[in-house]
């Protein structure tokens, strides 16, 4: 049974759609070169081909935002991908044998990883390998694994007590077959919801890391670094902080709304399993 499409779902889809569209278009076209330093356009006011003005190096803010969307999505996709690929199997295993030693071990390690937030991991990784997009993505991804594992485990435990799984087990199907044929398709909707919520968190983490200088390196535009660069000019040119700030907030809002909306739409029954933040 599917729920109804709600306003939040639509709003979320629209916001996410805008970010995706901006990122895709930025591959083929931006109003200006977002990395072009041009002293003559220094702190240029909005207008005349510079829709949102230019920053202290004369770079076009709008173009930077477009390419920044690309950075954001890139980091989000890789980070959430890492988290899903590692977290889901672990969670399914733990959920299928909730009393086994393996499940216990998985959940304990999970709790331990939980004690290492993305930012700490990124700082440590950055200290060892030099900070950059890659270390940021890996750190965010690894830090998100526990959330995926927990949701996958909770959803699996619910699925495991349903009649069709009991029937499959009674029929002597192997565990791996049950996991692939019955469990995964049935927890899929929860994982999609989790992916959306995790994506929002990944965006926040990437922004924070870039803000601190542990994320995407210059000259590649990133919303977080745009904010950091704008901070010293907050007194004179606050719009430089406004636009990337708005971009981050709307993108995060979009993925959060999409996640909540999808949860209501895909599986009203499973609403009780909350996506982990």
């Amino acid at each position, binding site marked *: 049974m599917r729920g109804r499409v709600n306003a*939040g779902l639509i709003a979320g889809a629209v916001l996410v759609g805008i970010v995706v569209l901006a990122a895709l278009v930025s591959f083929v076209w931006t109003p200006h070169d977002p990395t072009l330093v041009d002293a003559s356009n220094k702190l240029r006011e909005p207008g005349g081909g510079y829709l949102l003005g230019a920053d202290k190096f004369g770079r076009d803010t709008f173009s930077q935002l477009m390419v920044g969307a690309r950075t954001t999505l890139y980091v989000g996709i890789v980070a959430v991908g890492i988290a899903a690929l590692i977290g889901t199997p672990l969670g399914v295993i733990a959920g299928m044998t909730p009393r086994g030693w393996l499940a216990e071990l998985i959940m*304990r390690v999970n*709790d*331990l990883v*939980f*004690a*290492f*937030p*993305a*930012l*700490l991991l990124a*700082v*440590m990784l*950055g*200290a*060892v390998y030099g900070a950059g997009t890659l270390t940021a993505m890996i750190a965010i991804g690894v830090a998100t694994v526990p959330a995926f594992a927990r949701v996958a485990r909770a959803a699996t435990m619910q699925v495991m007590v349903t009649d069709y799984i009991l029937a499959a087990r009674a029929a002597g199907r192997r565990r791996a077959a049950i996991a692939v044929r019955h469990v995964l398709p049935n927890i899929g909707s929860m994982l999609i919801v989790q992916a959306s919520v995790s994506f*929002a968190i990944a965006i*926040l983490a990437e*922004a*924070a890391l870039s*803000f*601190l200088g542990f994320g995407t390196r210059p000259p590649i535009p990133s919303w977080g670094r745009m*904010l950091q660069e*704008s*901070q010293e000019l*907050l*007194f004179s040119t*606050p719009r430089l*902080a406004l636009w990337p*700030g708005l971009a*981050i*907030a*709307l*993108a*995060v*809002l979009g993925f*959060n*709304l999409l996640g909540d909306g999808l949860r209501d739409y895909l599986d009203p029954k499973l609403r009780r399993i*909350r996506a982990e*933040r």
Partner: protein
Amino acid sequence: MILYLLKRLAVLVASTAVAGVAVFAFMALLPGDPAEIALGVNATPEAVAALRERFGTDRPPLSQFADWFGGLIQGDFGTSYVTSSPIGPQIGDRLGVTAVLVLGGMVIALLIAVPAGTFAAVHHRNPLGVTISAASQVGIAIPAFLAGILLVFVFAVKAQALPSGGYVPIAEDPRAWLLGLLLPWLSLGLVQGAVLTRYVRSAVLDVMREDYLRTARAKGRGRMGALWRHGLRNASIPVVTVLGLQLATLLVGAVVVERVFVIPGLGDLLLNGVAGRDLLLVQGVVMVLVVAVLLINFVVDVTYAVLDPRLR
């Protein structure tokens, strides 16, 4: 109850030990020899060897780890390879600043979330309740450092009412201390308050559907009376879980907010350590932050036991 606490305590100790191994192993991967880095490129091999011996980095990793971790247990974080000053006291000073920042943020978050979330749950069908839910959704989307920048813009740039950054120790000038912390507290508190509001709302909504609330009303309590007397304590159990997770998030949020407001806390120390390649300092700060998170989890577990007789 005692058995439960002992179990939790064992988990805490074991996790701390494993975390110690993880942090040490991770940092040991750092390319470059601290002694070489400290002395620069033109150092003689003899000088480097001598320094290595002094640092103890010439010994096998296992014995290095034993030294480091053994020192940690006694509160000794070692001596920085870079600045040659003991690390423990530095961390101690900064820890207090960060703790005040995080706890203040948490208090503000709770002051917002408990009334707002409860209200939104009780009035979940009317426009004001829905507005609160929507507002919290927007609040979640704003990272703490962005909130900080916005607050600086409004209160420091436009209104010129509060300082845009800096930190004055309370012993020097309590008023300046308080004024300086207001915006950082708000940056952390507003955002966490928004997150928490949603959890409080859904916890209260869940509790409102419970049979024992109907029982309470059948006894002669009004809607709000039943919720107050029987609902809030039950609702607080899931909220405490989230509160624990939030405190951990706040700790990390504080690292960024310290940067925004130029506050000399642990985050500032950590980032300086990374910038200065001060391996032992980074190791120490990371360890302190991780242990803080583990300790918070432990406190959450203990709180459960106090709240919920089923766990005793």
